[in-house]
């Protein structure tokens, strides 16, 4: 679903000048390097004293992929166990999720598995999942086998990436790949809907943040006869 940032945006994907807006959530236990990963991507800095940004919890990046403009909003989430139950509030309406684990920490990989289960349950197949093994600069201390991680990713329809925020490895590829996949999903979605006319349904999917009740499709009873 490509909810264009500029308030809806009419016309199909063919319309020039239209930018995709994607929301990507970042999930992972504390200390797996979520923050370093995004800071490396958006600021190209690692543990740097000169990082200018005030915060690393909400970052945006503008991309141009094959002539298509993409506005990427990256939502960091609190990874502590005590906040686990809040996950659904964060990842509602996201187009992609990056699930980060630390290759030297088996536990963090288990957490990723939990999240995948949850995400698939809540959002179905509409969301593009990326499972990321971070800290490959610490290969010697690896505790999660490459094979296990990759076969797991495949089994849940996610893609697996190896990254190192410290050495700036694999990060650019990760985000580029994710964006391409999200564009594809958005295009399929659009085609299925025909044109933009039925967009309000999707555009409003995320409006209700607190209520757990399903969105009532209102204006249902109304027919078009004038009074």
């Amino acid at each position, binding site marked *: 679903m490509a909810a264009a940032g500029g308030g809806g945006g009419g016309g199909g994907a063919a319309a020039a000048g239209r930018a995709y807006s994607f929301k990507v959530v970042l999930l992972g236990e504390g200390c797996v390097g979520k923050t370093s990963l995004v800071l490396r991507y958006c600021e190209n800095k690692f543990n740097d004293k000169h990082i200018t940004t005030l915060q690393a919890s909400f970052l945006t990046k503008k991309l141009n992929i094959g002539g298509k403009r993409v506005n990427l909003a990256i939502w960091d989430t609190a990874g502590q166990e005590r906040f686990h139950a809040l996950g659904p509030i964060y990842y509602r309406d996201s187009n992609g999720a990056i699930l980060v684990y630390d290759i030297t920490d088996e536990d963090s990989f288990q957490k990723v598995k939990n999240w995948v289960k949850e995400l698939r349950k809540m959002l179905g197949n509409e969301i593009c999942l990326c499972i990321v093994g971070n800290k490959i600069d610490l290969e010697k201390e690896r505790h999660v086998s490459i094979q296990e991680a990759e076969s797991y990713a495949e089994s849940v329809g996610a893609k697996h990436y190896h990254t190192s925020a410290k050495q700036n490895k694999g990060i650019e590829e990760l985000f580029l790949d994710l964006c391409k996949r999200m564009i594809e999903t958005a295009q399929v979605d659009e085609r299925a809907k025909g044109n933009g006319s039925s967009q309000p349904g999707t*555009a409003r999917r995320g409006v209700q943040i607190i209520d757990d009740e399903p969105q009532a499709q209102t204006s249902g009873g109304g027919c078009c006869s004038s*009074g």
Partner: protein
Amino acid sequence: MSLKSERRGIHVDQSDLLCKKGCGYYGNPAWQGFCSKCWREEYHKARQKQIQEDWELAERLQREEEEAFASSQSSQGAQSLTFSKFEEKKTNEKTRKVTTVKKFFSASSRVGSKKAEIQEAKAPSPSINRQTSIETDRVSKEFIEFLKTFHKTGQEIYKQTKLFLEGMHYKRDLSIEEQSECAQDFYHNVAERMQTRGKVPPERVEKIMDQIEKYIMTRLYKYVFCPETTDDEKKDLAIQKRIRALRWVTPQMLCVPVNEDIPEVSDMVVKAITDIIEMDSKRVPRDKLACITKCSKHIFNAIKITKNEPASADDFLPTLIYIVLKGNPPRLQSNIQYITRFCNPSRLMTGEDGYYFTNLCCAVAFIEKLDAQSLNLSQEDFDRYMSGQTSPRKQEAESWSPDACLGVKQMYKNLDLLSQLNERQERIMNEAKKLEKDLIDWTDGIAREVQDIVEKYPLEIKPPNQPLAAIDSENIENDKLPPPLQPQVYAG
């Protein structure tokens, strides 16, 4: 849009189809049930009257604002951001709550916060369903001025907005969810029309949408904020009570990465609390969001000063929770619901504001479900703190009340000192007792030992079994000794 408004006609009764004035022609819901001729007359009359009122009110507003500004300049010092401000806001809130309760009894009491909301003429004209409040008027003026820069598109937008507002007037009986749906439809349709028909560039559309939101929500606020048909108010009170019960939660328990001993940081914390409390005083969803964003920025600053690195969500969320607990913002649930229902969705979903809003929702959800485990406490401790029997804060009185007055601070210090003294006294007593016991033990021990030894080696004094004369009997060379001297008497 026109399609939409016509669709609403289905709710109108058969008898309502005729012109309300009874001229015999058919009326139209878009004209409030009048026929075209009567509508024009009514509208014209109301319009004239309104222009007149607008003038008067605008002038009064100008004067009032100038006065307020002048007085605030002189009276409010640099330290206006302190505790007294919270207190004031909270008292405001209390009085407001009273009026909300009253609302059940009087149909048209006011909900709004601004003192400026004088004499709400209860719809004197059927055409313009609006309360005559200064703020509303100012916003309308601004809106019209703003639209003038867009010429024809502006005119059309104004027409659509007007139609929408009139439509909403008849929807007040619908559930709040349905009203929200209507507003969301309206946002979407207007934005789309602008882009496809008006060929307005996206950045411009966003700006116009902001203005539209401001205009319509200023007017709808009093009907759709915390409406009586929902249990929003009940939820407000529940969360308020809950936060009050959790007053004892310390930053350490939440692992808040903010050190309030640094004056700059505590300043930021105070500012963040002020911002989040201020949210309730705004009417437009976007302004409310702006308050949350401002609060978040202050939190980030506080974290940055403490940790000297950009804050991640792991740092931010606990701090936001702490701020909410400390501030106990008024009508928290109502505000969240209102923003959710009536904010322009494009802002709420993708933007930075949306992110902070989501975090606030998370914070509230966390506070509602908070238990011993989420604070790393034992169940007994948690229960004890919740019941108010003990407070973990006593030791940290210093860090918890930077905004308390001097006397209270001194009291905390003294209490602290007393408890320390008490502890020391007890320790001394204990040690003295121990010493006493030791001494007793020691004497006992010695006595026992002596006894033991005495028993082991009894002191036996054997009586002499030989006559004294035999004392030398064993001497072998006795006979070699000279005979003992005999006493002799000398006659002198």
